[in-house]
């Protein structure tokens, strides 16, 4: 039953991608910006979790909450300082700024603490149990359940609360939303806060699962989460979750087949195929560009 085990590993990895991809997709949906700094927020989340568990002796859940809160604040600060002025600028200018913010955070963290990796402390005794012959670790279950709970909360916020309604309205048509009395600036900030909080949670989970974090850890998962967002159809929340899970499973399968050096290439090949054949993503609708 090795396959079942690989599948579960893939889903655990995929749920981390999904959590990051949600932030990408929400931000893209609302201001059409690929927030390259999102991977760095994920990295900061991992480090805050590390500091609060190893340094201050907090438990897993307080650390998770703390990390999510701090990341939400950081996300809003990034948006207010770097992106707000660029809302009417060209897409390229916004994209370059996002790359700049990403490099700044990476190198700022390296400058402050050095580039050496840190070993994540064990918060859970990692037991594994047997399910239909597959060894399943409690950590995999934990990751999965935390991700599912967070996604359910997100679904609730987006569809049942006032701020969620505002977010959907702004992403549909920002001008009309403004005319209806929605505070567009605050809504965009809220989107960044929620997306960044999810990335922070993903960072803590990633640290616990892979036990090693470093200041450049956000780059590759960030890019892959973006691939996941595109795969599912960027701007579509269930799409990001599905894309993340598919990507995680594909990567695990590629590794399991003995092509692990090509694992990173698999994600990019998926990206290119999807961009060429169905740029709107698995869940997206085709839109015509108007002159």
């Amino acid at each position, binding site marked *: 039953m090795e396959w079942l085990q690989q599948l579960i590993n893939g889903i655990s990895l995929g749920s981390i991608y999904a959590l990051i991809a949600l932030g990408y997709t929400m931000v893209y949906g609302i201001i059409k910006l690929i927030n390259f700094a999102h991977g760095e927020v994920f990295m900061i989340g991992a480090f805050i979790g590390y500091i609060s568990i190893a340094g201050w002796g907090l438990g897993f859940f307080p650390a998770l909450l703390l990390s999510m809160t701090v990341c939400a604040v950081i996300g809003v600060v990034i948006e207010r300082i770097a992106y707000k002025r660029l809302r009417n600028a060209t897409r390229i200018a916004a994209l370059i700024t996002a790359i700049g913010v990403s490099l700044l955070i990476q190198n700022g963290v390296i400058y402050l603490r050095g580039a050496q990796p840190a070993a994540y402390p064990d918060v859970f005794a990692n037991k594994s149990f047997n399910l239909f012959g597959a060894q399943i670790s409690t950590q995999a279950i934990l990751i999965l359940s935390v991700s599912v709970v967070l996604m359910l909360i997100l679904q609730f916020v987006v569809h049942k609360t006032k701020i969620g309604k505002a977010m959907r309205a702004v992403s549909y048509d920002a001008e009309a939303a403004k005319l209806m009395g929605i505070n567009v600036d605050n809504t965009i900030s809220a989107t960044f806060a929620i997306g960044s909080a999810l990335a922070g949670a993903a960072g803590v989970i990633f640290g616990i699962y892979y036990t090693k974090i470093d200041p450049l850890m956000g780059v590759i998962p960030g890019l892959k989460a973006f691939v996941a967002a595109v795969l599912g159809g960027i701007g579509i929340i269930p799409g990001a979750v599905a894309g993340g899970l598919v990507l995680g499973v594909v990567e695990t399968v590629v590794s399991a087949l003995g092509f692990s050096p*090509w694992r*990173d290439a698999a994600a990019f090949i998926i990206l290119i195929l999807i961009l060429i054949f169905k740029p709107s993503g698995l869940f997206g609708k085709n839109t015509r560009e108007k002159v």
Partner: protein
Amino acid sequence: MMKKSKQFWGFTILAIAIFVAIQFMISGGFLNNFYSNTLIFMAINIMLAVSLHLVIGITGQFSLGHAGFLAVGAYVSAIMTMKLDLPFFAAILIAGIAAALAGLVVGIPSLRLRGDYLAIATLGFAEIIRIIFMNMDYVGEAAGMQVTHLTTWTYTFICLFVTILVIVNFTNSRHGRACIAIRENEIAADAMGINTTYYKVLAFAIGSFFAGVAGALYAHNFYIIQPSNFGFLKSIDILIYVVLGGLGSLSGAIVATILLTIVSTFLQDYPETRMIIYSLVLIIVMLYRPKGLMGKMEFTDYLKMWMRPKGGSQHEQ
């Protein structure tokens, strides 16, 4: 016609003067190894910046994968000289052609995409190119490949001269105007009867060709090439030169490259500080001067404005 040829000869004479002056300083021993190496490095960077300028600044196609073509050029030229014992100039040419072919392979499918989708697709392609080299036993996998030092100031300068000449002439030709039309408004250009796909792919292939040539010089200047030299960050490095100088300004790209190469040479021992400065420059320029330092203006435009200060058509946009 007259005006253009005057510009051309002026440029050629200036280039020969710079070349002779620096060659004289190198052979006369006024410049030590460190400085001449920095000059060669600067020239390679200028070639990269100018070739990316053609893709981003002139044609308006946002590519984040220029380092991929640099890698193709570097590895192909290294294989040519190290494994097949070809002379260096042949290796440079083959490297350019190989990179141009890679540019076609990447460009034909991905140039149908626009804006940030194109950026991400080119980024993905560059990563795939890097991962291929990283898993190729023939070129030493992740450990890299030993390359002899063959790059000289003469080779570098000739390549740089040809690069700038070709790209300037291309920009000023009918084809270049078609590319500028695509940058300004792709749909309108299409409606005017410009074959947009053809010109986008053409500009992309020419840009890749010169990135490949730069890659050949790069490989034979550093004794060793490793896949990690050609990652995402290298693409960003090149992008910063072009963006800082002004999207659409060739002389701006050259000036920015010279400035940033000097800065990064002095900060070589402090890579984080260098990157922090780079990223801050990038953010601040984008926030307060999104056109870049020179916008779409060239040095010759400033010269004209200065010679004719009153009246006339001063069209700064």
